[in-house]
Structure formats: C-alpha cells, structure tokens
C-alpha cells in the first residue's frame, strides 16, 4: 500500500469523527458511561480486597512452647515453620516478652511488684500466613511438632475472611463480566447505528472498485479513536472522584482512615488504565470492523 493511501485512510477516519459529531458524541458517551461504571466498580473492589488482605495479614496462629524447652530446639522449630510455604512471617515471643506485652496492653502499671512471671510457660511463636485459608493445614502440622504444647488459632475469623474473599472474587467476576457484556452490547450498537446510516457511502465505494480494506480502514480508525477518547474520559473522572473520596474520608472519618488505608491511586490506575484503554480501543475496533463487514457484500 502506498504511504499516501495510508495517510488518506487515517485522515478520512479522523475527519469522520468531526464530520459525524453527533454519532461521535453518542459513541464516546456510551463508551465513557460503561467504562466509568467499570472503573468505579474496579476501584471499590480493589480497596475492598485490600482491606481483606490487610485483615488477613494481621491474623496469626500462636504456637505455645513447652516450658523448659532449650534454645536450640526453639531455633529448630522456628526453622521448620519458616520453611512452610503457607507461612509469611514468624515472630518469637519469650515468656518475659509475652508478660511485658500483656501487662502493657492490660495497663497493669508497674510490674516490678510481681516477683515471678505469671506467664512463665507462655513462650510462643506468632505465625502469620500468606494464605489464610491454609490455617487448618498449618495448625495440624504445628500440633504434630514436638516441643509445641498448644496451638491457638482464630478459626472462625480465618473462615470468615476466606469466605469474604471468595464472595468478593465471585461477585467481582460476575459484575465485571456483566458490565463487560453490557458495554460491548451498548457500544457495538451505537457504532453499528452510526455506520449503518452511512451504508450508502460504503456501497458507493464498493461499486467503484474500492477494496474491503480501503473501505473499512477509515471506519475502523474512527472506531479506534472514539474508543480511545471514550476510555480516557472516564479514567479522568474516576481519578478525580477517587482522590476526592480519599480526602473526604480522611477529613470526615479520621478514625476510619486509620483502620482502612485506601489503595494509592497510582496502584489502582496501574491496572485500570491499560484495561480501560484496551476495552475502549478493542470495542471500538471490533464494533466498527464487524459492522462495516455487514455492508461490504456489494
């Protein structure tokens, strides 16, 4: 293909965008509305998952050690636990450290009045999991380790978090699929209507000997550019709304923002931008490509 033919097709595609401004506006608005909902939902979902993950990180299993256990055995047990794949972090608390922490948390004040450590047999490991659903496996393993006398677990919390995680996963997949299908339907319909009213133009081109590529190229370029604009508009909207929401929560509910930190906007947009642009451009391309094809058989 000659370079001037290529430029001609690109120029015609861009020109069509301004020439058919109502169609462009309708298409951009449809794509923007769909991707805006998608972006908003994605942001909420990302934050929700972030909260759950943080809660999981705080969840730990305590393995209480037998009293009088040697330091060598403690190190051995620690090594055994660290090597397990479901474990993300292991912290050892000696009996003294456990007592001091307990006293602090319970506001005992001066603990020097205690001549003996009431938690003498409470040296333990706090074990954090990388996957909270693996807690039962880890617990049954710990219970079989010589030197560990008791394992404290928060089974219900772990179960609840696993359940919430699964529900979020299913619901998000469901909603994303529905939003995606609705977006494709709405956008391709808008693109179809816009192109169908110009089917005479396509037929004229074909009658005088235009190839399918030459006929289709300006429409496809038009579709891609509309998809691109239609994906950037909602991204800008979501960006500002997200930032505003973060500032609003921080201002109005400071205690809440201490509990649940928002995912930084950069992290959310690192995934959201390519997904939205891909969706917009992809739908614009596929919508225009398939619609023009219907009118090419002349």
């Amino acid at each position: 293909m000659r370079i001037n033919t290529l430029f001609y097709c690109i120029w015609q595609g861009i020109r069509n965008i301004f020439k058919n401004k109502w169609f462009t506006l309708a298409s951009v608005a449809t794509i923007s509305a769909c991707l805006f909902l998608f972006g908003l939902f994605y942001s909420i979902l990302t934050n929700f998952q972030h909260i759950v993950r943080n809660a999981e990180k705080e969840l730990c299993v305590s393995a209480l050690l037998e009293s009088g256990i040697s330091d060598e055995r403690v190190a051995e047990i620690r090594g055994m636990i660290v090597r397990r794949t479901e474990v993300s972090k292991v912290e050892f608390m000696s009996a003294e450290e456990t007592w001091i922490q307990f006293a602090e948390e319970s506001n005992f004040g001066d603990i020097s009045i205690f001549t003996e450590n009431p938690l003498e047999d409470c040296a333990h490991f706090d074990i954090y999991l990388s996957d909270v659903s693996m807690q039962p496996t880890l617990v049954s393993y710990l219970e079989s380790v010589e030197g560990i006398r008791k394992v404290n677990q928060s089974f219900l919390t772990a179960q609840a978090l696993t359940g919430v995680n699964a529900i979020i996963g299913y619901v998000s997949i469901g909603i994303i699929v529905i939003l995606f299908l609705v977006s494709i339907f709405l956008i391709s319909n808008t693109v179809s209507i816009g192109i169908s009213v110009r089917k005479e133009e396509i037929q004229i081109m074909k009658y005088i000997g235009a190839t399918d590529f030459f006929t289709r190229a300006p429409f496809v370029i038009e579709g891609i550019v509309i998809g691109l604009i239609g994906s950037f508009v909602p991204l800008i909207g979501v960006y500002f709304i997200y930032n505003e929401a973060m500032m609003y929560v921080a201002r109005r509910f400071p205690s809440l923002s201490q509990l649940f930190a928002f995912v930084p906007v950069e992290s959310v947009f690192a995934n959201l931008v390519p997904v939205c642009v891909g969706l917009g451009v992809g739908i614009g391309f596929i919508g225009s490509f398939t619609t023009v094809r219907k009118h090419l058989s002349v």
Partner: protein
Amino acid sequence: MKTTRTRRRTGAGTADKAIILEHVSKAYTVGVPALNDVTLHINKGEFVFIVGDSGSGKSTLIKLLLRELLPTSGRVIVNGTDVGRLKRRQIPKFRRSLGVVFQDFRLLKDRNVYENVAFAQRIIQMPNREIRRNVPSILSTVGLAGKYKARPKQLSGGEQQRVALARALVNKPQILLADEPTGNLDPKNSWDIMNLLEKINNNGTTVLVVTHNREIVNAMQKRVITMKKGIIVSDEEKGGYIDED
C-alpha cells in the same frame, strides 16, 4: 410501432468483444426468472442502448455485469474476464476496469466535486501528483472545472450526473455502464449527458446505456437492445424505442 426485429450477427471471435453473455439466466426466487437464457455480444467501442419496461431485466443485466449478482446459469464475460469465476478479492480490481453511472448519481455527499472524482483515483492508489493533474482535466471535459469545490447538494441534477460521469471516466475505463443516466434530469441536461456519452464513445470507450428515454434513443440512432420479461426481444443496429403492448 416498429415490428422488424433484426438479430445482429455476433461474429465468431471474442477478442473484439467487450461484453459477452452466453445463455445467461438469473432467477431471484422460484418463478419467472429476471433473465432467461440471454445471449448477447457487444463489441469493443460500441454504443448500445438497453431499453425495456420495468421488470424486463435491464437492471439485473447491469448488476450481473458489475458482479453484484452471479448468474443462475450461463456465462458473463466482461473485458475477457469470466465474471462468474471471479474470487471475492478480485472484484474490486475488476470493477475498476468499468465506469458506472447511476440514475441517482451516488456521489459521496460529504465530499466536494474534486474529492468525489479523486476518490476513484485514490482507490487505485494513484500518486497525489497524478490525481492533481487528472481530476481537473476530467472535470473540464465534463464542463465542471469551475465547480470543483462545490458539494453535491449545491449542484443541479445535471451537474451531479456530470460529476458521476467524471468519476466513472477518470480511471479511463474500457467500458462505461450507465443505468438510467437521464432518469432524474430535464430534457436539456439529458441531452448534455448523452452528448458527453457519445463523445466518450467516440474516444473508444464502449458505452452501454440502460434507459427509458424514448426521444433520445430514437434520435441517436445507435444499437438498441429491447428486453421484455427477461429475454431480448429485439436487437437492432440503428434502432429505435419499441413500444411493447
């Protein structure tokens, strides 16, 4: 009314033929076919009128020549190409060897006169400098050199048909197909267009005109093929419009 119907001699060779139809039939649905066993030879450089009432098969004939339709049976050969054997991807190149003019002009409404004509050249990937030379030249041939910036809706019917003619001719086709080119024009513009077609024919282009315009057909004394209910009922060397009752 003329009653003499002289079948023209078709000749044995095909090298001098622009269009050959051999026992061509076309049926859209079960029932009366739009074309029924039509055999027709048109020589290179000829000027031919195809006349007939609505439903006689004239438009079907044009569609077969453009490869918009395929015959149900028989062979359609245009410029030596068996149209029925063309693959889909070969159709655009085939159509570029034809110039086509329609009753409703079929201009690209959003483009000016220059761009409408240039479009036919862009399709064949003509370099811009060639387009800049060829388009003004053909526009002056059809008498529209001064209106190259006008949009189709700013032109009269006759002018629009001249633009369509310029677009059909700019790639120098061997055959020009005109489907009711004067159907939407007043008598003066109709004659202007016919004179242009005759001029084009004098330069060697085969011209096939489908028309209802009795006055023009009778006055021009060209070959006239009359169709009725899908068959050729008359083919006269210097014929006139036959009234079929």
